[in-house]
């Protein structure tokens, strides 16, 4: 589109401007407009002329912006911090989601849906879910903390660590801004961030999860699984022995579920 053709598009109603560039003037503009929902500034009434090729949904005006319950949540600094954690500490955030879903929601539903006949199994399933969530969160948080800090260093000083990778990352030069736009950098960074936890720690975490089940059954549900058919109680109480024992326990095989 030629810029000349749109110079005189009167559909864009611009309001008062602070041409002086004076910060005080700018602050005055905002206090008079946005904050009080009495916008004196740019408030467009688009007539559909110009370069717009977007759908009606995309051109939606946000009604009552800043005042709905969702907006209030979006505007809270705590939510913004949480969103930053999701980007900068993806593995910890993943474990946090698991903690809420598998550590609270899933056991609660398991117990609520439990019938008289399968109460024992439901309790065991709930213990497994809590164990998985807690182990996941604790291990990921501890192990990934130095990795996250190291990644922050890469982001802060990309030239120091990634010099010479311009072609591979599809940028003219290595710099914070340039890399933000690079899709290869974004993709490979996410892989680098998630490999230590998802690939390397995945199986040890699963083993540890199984090892923690008896403790959760005992201390959370106040219930101890008795050995069936006169089996001898476990003598060797090392973590891996527990893991091996419970992994081979037929009761464990009653579990049906995806990401445990």
């Amino acid at each position, binding site marked *: *589109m030629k810029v000349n053709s*749109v*110079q005189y598009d009167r559909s*864009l109603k611009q309001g*008062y*401007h*602070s*041409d002086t560039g004076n910060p005080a003037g*700018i602050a005055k503009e905002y206090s008079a407009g946005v904050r009080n929902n009495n916008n004196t*500034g*740019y*408030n*467009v009434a*688009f007539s559909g002329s*110009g*370069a717009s090729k977007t759908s009606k949904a995309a051109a939606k*005006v*946000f009604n009552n*912006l*800043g005042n709905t319950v969702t907006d209030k949540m979006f*505007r809270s600094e705590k939510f913004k911090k*949480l*969103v930053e954690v999701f*980007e900068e500490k*993806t593995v910890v*955030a*993943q474990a946090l989601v698991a903690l*809420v879903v*598998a550590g609270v*929601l*899933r056991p609660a*539903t398991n117990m609520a849906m439990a019938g008289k006949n399968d109460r024992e199994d439901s309790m065991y399933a709930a213990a497994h*879910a809590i164990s998985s969530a807690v182990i996941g969160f604790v291990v990921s948080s501890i192990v990934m903390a*130095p990795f996250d800090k*190291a*990644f922050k*260093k*890469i982001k802060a000083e990309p030239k120091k*660590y990634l010099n010479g990778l311009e072609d591979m990352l599809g940028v003219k030069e290595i710099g914070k*801004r340039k890399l933000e*736009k690079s899709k290869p950098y974004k*993709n*490979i960074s*996410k*892989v680098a961030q*998630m*490999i*230590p936890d*998802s*690939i390397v720690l*995945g*199986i040890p975490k*699963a083993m540890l999860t199984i090892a923690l089940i008896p403790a959760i059954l005992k201390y959370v549900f106040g219930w101890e699984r008795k050995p069936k058919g006169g089996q001898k109680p476990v003598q060797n109480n090392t973590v891996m022995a527990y893991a091996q024992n419970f992994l*081979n326990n*037929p009761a464990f*095989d009653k579990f*049906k579920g*995806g*990401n*445990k």
Partner: protein
Amino acid sequence: MQISSLQTLNLNNVNYSRQNKPAFTGKVPVESKLFNPISKRYDKMTDWIARNYYERFYRSSFAKWFIDKTKNVKNMTTHMSAVGATLISGMYTVRTLQNDKLDPEKRKTLALNDVMTWGLSTAGSYFLDSKLANWWDGVTTRFAANYLLDHPQGKKPRTFGNWNPANLNKFMEKWYLVKNRRIDNLNRKIAASIADGSYKGARKPNLQHVKPEDAISYKNIRDFNLDVLKNKRLTTLIDGMGVLKSLFVFGMVYRYIVPVLVMKPANKIGAMIHKKNAEKAEQQDVKKA
């Protein structure tokens, strides 16, 4: 301090200025003997990880190969979550198949159950993730609009004037018109001030319009922010919103929807059908006898 004493003060008195110089009482941060060595070592350790893990990873032939193969791949978080879940589900399936305490038939059934659960969860996650993509883009744009409401400097008022973030979608489409209009106004004012001699040089005369090749209508808030608003924190937040959606979808589907809300009722229904069939067979056996 009493007012009368203030009245008699001679501020040019050298002694006064010497004696009454405000003494700096703030404490210079002293390095903690206990924690400083620990934090130094931690810092060294993170340096080591940055050099020996991240840098080596970026420079590896795997990274080069991976970037070549994933040029058009979006949302890597989703794929990495799927890979992690596949690995763990695979381990559980293998362990089930190796369990000597179960008869071979049961082993196969349980392993199949594991595989089906994984398949259903993975397919369900990808399906839900893609179905929510457009809606979530809208949510993210609204989130960005709220951010701009709270951080007016992010709207680049020097360049665009005061615009309402409630119109962010429209602004993303026609930002360059707003900028050009503002440039016209500024040029007019500057020309007038030069003419009447009041020009102070705060802005250069003859500001140029947006170049035609740069006058792009944006649909995506991330691209718009990267190219036009250039707000670093907003980029992190927009990326974070994408990760939040993917992780929440995967967490819910893998850990809740499929194993609890789908598989458990499915198993109960299966058990009921099995029980009914067994009863029927038993009745038929009795009749035959």
